[in-house]
């Protein structure tokens, strides 16, 4: 009985939402039809928001990658929030998984020699790759989140290969904190300099070069470090290993 009701309910909700999404135009065919309204200056423009991003993005942020421009600069505050969400997740997991006494170590079979050696070798390269992804976030597809995830995956590899391995928790925490402080600090400096929180106060430089787009690379490095250490921390907490 309950199952039938649940199924009917689910089907109904799918139909309803499907009908709603069917009314949505996809692609940027009629992008020019929307004229956004600026509530502060109380004026209507002849532009739509996405069109503005595409047209002016490079000039206004200095970032070659428009996705990054939107994520880190136009809507940097949301990104700060998302970083916080991740931070919260890791804190929450840390709090829930907190173990009062050292649990008895389970006996885990060691991985074989191939895995151990290969993971040692690969470890550095994966980290390098992750770092590349977030350092070049404003130039190429990618950015802090994928970069951080890649870095965390290198630690995951070590966890899998060496059952007794555990990342040093203290330094993870410190890295996490410093990265987070950098992000908020950049925002606060912007507030001091230009009275806009998260203001892009550094010179934009030349687009397509590594040192361009003002504070975006700094933020992306911070995000990368932060995401990397947080995900590692989550993995660590799940493993039940404590300092």
């Amino acid at each position: 009985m309950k199952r039938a009701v649940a199924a009917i309910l689910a089907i109904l909700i799918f139909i309803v939402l499907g009908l709603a999404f069917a009314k949505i135009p996809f692609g940027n065919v009629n992008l020019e039809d929307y004229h956004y309204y600026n509530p502060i200056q109380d004026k209507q423009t002849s532009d739509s928001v996405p069109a503005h991003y595409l047209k002016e993005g490079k000039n206004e942020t200095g970032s070659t990658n428009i996705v990054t421009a939107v994520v880190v600069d136009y809507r940097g505050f949301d990104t700060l929030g998302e970083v916080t969400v991740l931070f919260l997740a890791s804190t929450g997991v840390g709090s829930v998984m907190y173990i009062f006494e050292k649990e008895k170590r389970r006996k885990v079979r060691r991985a074989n020699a191939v895995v151990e050696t290969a993971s040692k070798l690969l470890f550095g390269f994966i980290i390098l790759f992750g770092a590349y992804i977030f350092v070049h976030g404003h130039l190429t597809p990618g950015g802090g989140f994928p970069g951080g995830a890649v870095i965390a995956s290198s630690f995951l590899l070590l966890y899998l290969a060496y059952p007794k391995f555990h990342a040093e928790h203290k330094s993870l925490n410190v890295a996490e904190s410093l990265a987070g402080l950098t992000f908020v600090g950049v925002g606060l400096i912007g507030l001091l300099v230009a009275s806009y929180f998260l203001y892009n106060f550094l010179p934009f430089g030349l687009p397509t070069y590594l040192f361009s787009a003002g504070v975006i690379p700094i933020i992306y490095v911070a995000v990368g470090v932060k995401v990397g250490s947080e995900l590692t921390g989550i993995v660590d907490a799940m493993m039940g290993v404590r300092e």
Partner: protein
Amino acid sequence: MEIWSAFGIFVLVPLIGALLSYLARKYAVYLGLIFALVPAIALYPFYGKEMSTVVNIGVKLNLAFDVTTWFFMLMLDTVALASMLFATSYVRKGEGGFSTLMLLGLAGANGVLMARDFLTLYIFWEMMSWSAYILVLRSSGEYARRYMLFAVLSAYLLIMGIGIYYYYTGSFLYSAASGIPLSGWAWILLFLILGFAVKMAVFPLHVWAPYAYRSEQPFVAFLSGGLSKLGTFGIFMAMYSIAGVAILQGFGTFRSISLFGYPFAVLGAFTAFIGTILAIFQDDLRKLLAYSSIGQLGYVMVGLGLGTPLAVGGALFHAFNHAFFKAILFLGAGAVIYRTGKYRISELGGLGYRMPFTFLFVLFAIFALAGIPITSGFISKWMLYEAAIEKKFVLIAPLMLIASVGAFLYCFRILYGVFLGQLDKEHENVKEAPAPMLAAMALLMLPLLIFAIFPGWILKWINEILTGANIGTLKYDTYAYYSSIGGADMLVFWITFMLLFMISMYLFTRKRKVTKVVDQYDNYLAGETPPYVQLHAAHNFYKPLRDTWAPLLRYSVDRAYEKFVKFFIEGFEEIKKMYTENPQDYAAYLGIAFLIFLLVGWWLL
């Protein structure tokens, strides 16, 4: 500026007193007395003054002072003063709560009297309600909840009335009442009257009173004598000051009585009847007085419902008398309980020999209650009877008369069971009540005697109230009032009474020389003297009467309420099952809710 002094004296001073007496717990009772004394004395210069103001604390409190306010304040503040005086020797020393809450209640009550808009009325009304609730809670915790529920019921009935008023006028001001259709008035008045009637303990809403009146006696004296008069005030104000006679007459008339008021008059008569019948069979002194209070306020309700000048005048006068004599009775009971620690009538007896002054005061209060002419209780009751007889109401008048006879019965029960008869052995050493208690009762005694001789004085004030509300005028002079079917001339009465009194006094003193006072035992036991015999038989008092009434006494409003509540609580248990504690169900609720929101939204689009 003057109104500020009035607001300050009658509301702020008690509030400050409440705060101070909480902080200085050691001297709380004395502080309470002082701060109750200030408004009670300051009242006299304010007679006849009319003023109004708006106090803005964020919401606008419209306050005014006129003769109606003054008249009701006279009762309330005097009773409060007497209660506080009584409490100085009744309440344990060093306890802050009592005076704090009494003063809060007093401030609330004075605020209700001065309010000229519903918001202010409601604020002070609730303040008075909850401080009384905590006072009930202090001593009879079991039943405090019952009091609170009815207090809140009263408040919510008021809210319904106020809200409908607000719907039509868009304002809380009393004076804004215009353009309300008759059907609107019917609902407004119904809710307001029922709301205030809870405070007056009118028939189906009376069940809180017998329980609440078991708490500390000085407070109960104030609750029954003082605070219940706010119900009277509220009904008077709602019917005659806000709505007015014209609107009441607009509902149609029955022998020139408004058809709207008539049912309430009948309800009042029933209340008088039922309260009296129930009072007769109570063994608990406090409960007896409580039912008697219900019955007496039924009379007041009759007067307010009938709405002729004579009836309303009688109602106000009776409310005034009731404030004083019921306060004396409760304080007297308090004195007895204070000295003996007992409150069952069957366990007491013969205390008149040990507590003569208390006996005297209670005796006079009982005269007033029963309507015996040497006190002003007679005049007010007579006015109410006449008001009913004048219009030939064959339902109301007989009910009132039967209730009056019943009042004699329970009055006698108090007199005999507590003060007369044989003194219990363990009460041999009972002393007279302490001086402050006696002083409090004596203070309350005065108006009952004064207005029995000079009813014209109080009728003058009542007449001012009546003319102010456009009800009509009373015919009266200093010693008498007159009505189309007679009236009462106290001058004639007093002269006759004094003559008869002299004659009987003379006969009595002459006879005294030849009478011999015999011991109680000699009377009953034919001269034999065993060490101790219990002669006092107050158990099963009025058993024959009880047997006669038994079929009717089976029905109890209390039990009906209990059944009602039980029914609902069982329902609540069923509803609780909705919270199954299973997250899958909860998720399904979310889905269903989404679809419903959507459907409704679609439909409304």
